[in-house]
């Protein structure tokens, strides 16, 4: 180990830089990375196999749990494929609602990423700010779907919850707050010198390399590739709204940050357009339990990039094969390339910059709970109040701060 002056550092399977168990073996010469070895698969839970043994409706919920952040992406992608095989034409309102949730999810994912990126370069203030603002969109999601993370809003043939007229105002108000905050973050990203120092020129991925390695999502767009499934292969209600495909020529982590931040602004505009045009009508139509024989490939622009599901049916109520290709799997190859000749200090941010989601990548098995079969329905608002009361009992009272924050935001 000491002969050549090279040190081998294991990053993972457990490491504070990684939010999920994956292993990177880094060979260092001084502070420079000379070799990089990825080993993934620690999160493999056999979801694809499990899908074959469940009915389509069960699969919708199973697939939703492939990933904790882009859960709507996976369920929509799966449902789209099934609907295509069954030849179901969705009611317009259902399409709109799906798209609204999809964009809200993108907002929450990008804000989450911004915070994580800040943390990876040691800028914890950004983490705290971004995640505080993320609560706005989390609350909106909870308001519209009843859940903060796994929304459970998709079903085959539509969506399970309608958007109430009185909630639309809430959503629009949230969008205004977030738009103002996002503009502030764009200012921070463009003005804060240590942040720019840490982000620019790091994790270079040229246009040619991005094409060659098949990068997707913001990673590809930051290398100047105009690749966005929402635009190229419109699904749900994306053909009825106008938005820009954000690209950037920086080809580095800084570019990826800018792309994500500017995409946020597009998200707000898309949601406003959709809410304005939201058509009346039913939100779901009856879908057959048995899906006729056939196959379909469905694509979806998840916050991290193109998500691809291949579904093949055999005429029964269970699918024959479900293949999930999450965006991280397409981008992980680019990471090794980006890390060539970079510093150890850049490793966390370069890995984080593709917004990796290894749960997605490895897929999984669902846990069956044996005991908790409680049928209690707890309203979200009650749960929230309970939480606040509990924390107050523990000595942390946020009410004064919240009031102050609300006042600041009104101003």
């Amino acid at each position, binding site marked *: 180990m000491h002969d050549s002056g090279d040190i081998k550092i294991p990053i993972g399977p457990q490491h504070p830089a990684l939010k999920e168990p994956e292993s990177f073996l880094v060979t260092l010469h001084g502070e420079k990375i000379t070799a990089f070895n990825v*080993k*993934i*698969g620690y999160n*493999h839970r*056999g979801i*694809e*196999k499990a899908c074959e043994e469940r009915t389509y409706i069960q699969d919708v919920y199973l697939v939703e749990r492939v990933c904790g952040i882009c859960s709507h992406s996976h369920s929509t992608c799966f449902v789209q494929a099934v609907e*295509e095989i069954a030849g179901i034409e969705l009611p317009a309102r259902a399409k709109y609602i799906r798209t609204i949730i999809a964009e809200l999810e993108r907002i929450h994912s990008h804000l989450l990423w911004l915070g994580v990126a800040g943390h990876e370069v040691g800028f914890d203030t950004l983490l705290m700010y971004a995640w505080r603002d993320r609560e706005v969109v989390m609350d909106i999601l909870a308001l519209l779907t009843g859940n903060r993370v796994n929304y459970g809003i998709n079903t085959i043939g539509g969506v399970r919850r309608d958007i109430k007229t009185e909630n639309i105002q809430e959503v629009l108000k949230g969008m205004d707050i977030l738009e103002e905050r996002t503009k502030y973050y764009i200012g921070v990203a463009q003005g804060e010198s240590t942040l720019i120092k840490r982000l620019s020129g790091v994790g270079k991925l040229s246009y040619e390399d991005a*094409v*060659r*390695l*098949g990068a997707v999502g913001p990673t590809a767009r930051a290398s100047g590739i*105009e*690749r966005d*499934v929402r635009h*190229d*292969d419109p699904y749900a209600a994306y053909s009825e709204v106008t938005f820009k495909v954000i690209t950037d020529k920086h080809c580095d982590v800084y570019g990826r940050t800018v792309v994500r931040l500017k995409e946020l602004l597009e998200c707000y505009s898309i949601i406003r357009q959709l809410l304005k045009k939201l058509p009346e009508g039913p939100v779901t139509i009856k879908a057959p339990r048995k899906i006729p024989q056939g*196959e*379909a*490939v469905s*694509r979806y622009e998840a916050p991290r990039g*193109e998500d*691809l599901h*291949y579904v*093949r049916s055999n005429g029964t109520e269970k699918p*024959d*094969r479900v*293949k999930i*290709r999450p965006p991280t*799997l*397409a981008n*992980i*190859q*680019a990471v090794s390339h980006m890390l060539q000749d970079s510093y150890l200090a850049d490793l966390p941010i370069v890995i984080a910059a593709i917004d990796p989601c290894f749960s997605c990548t*490895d*897929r999984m098995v669902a846990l069956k709970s044996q005991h908790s079969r409680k049928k209690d329905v707890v309203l979200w608002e009650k749960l929230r109040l309970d939480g606040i009361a509990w924390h107050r009992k523990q000595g942390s009272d946020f009410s004064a701060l919240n009031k102050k924050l609300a006042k600041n935001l009104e101003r």
Partner: protein
Amino acid sequence: MTQEEKIKQELSENFPFLKDAIIIKRERRIFLDVAIEQCSEVFDYLVKNMQFNKLSAITGLDEGDSLAVIYHLSRDGATLFNLRTRLSRDNPSINSVTPYFSSADIYERELMDLLGIKVIGLPEGHRYPLADDWPKDDFPLRKDWKSKENTPGHKGLASTRSAQEGQNA
């Protein structure tokens, strides 16, 4: 003529035997079944002459009598070309496409691990996605796969629980 029909026409001109095999499922979705012998040739043409510059995924299937591999190729304008080829169940093997797409590496490892398809020309590396102690000749995505005695985690929670109960008693 739509983009999809153009692709169909160009391919049929170069590979007359494919004429009826190309199916345009819908806008931007083309399916094609080719025999294993012609697979490499068609793949090569698609990538080199028809700008299919992105390998979106490789899907492995167990179709009962045979195994199948689908290459999901895409290009700008989002046309997705699904090239399927069938392999015999007894000795499934296929050429690696890593010379074209280095990103195919991980998808091909999945084929090896989950379906037991041999990929010729794939460089050495870690296995993915199964655990290192997973038996070498056990392919969980095959339809006839059953959890066996030596499958890691086979006994699962049940055995742990009974062991604990034994300790308590």
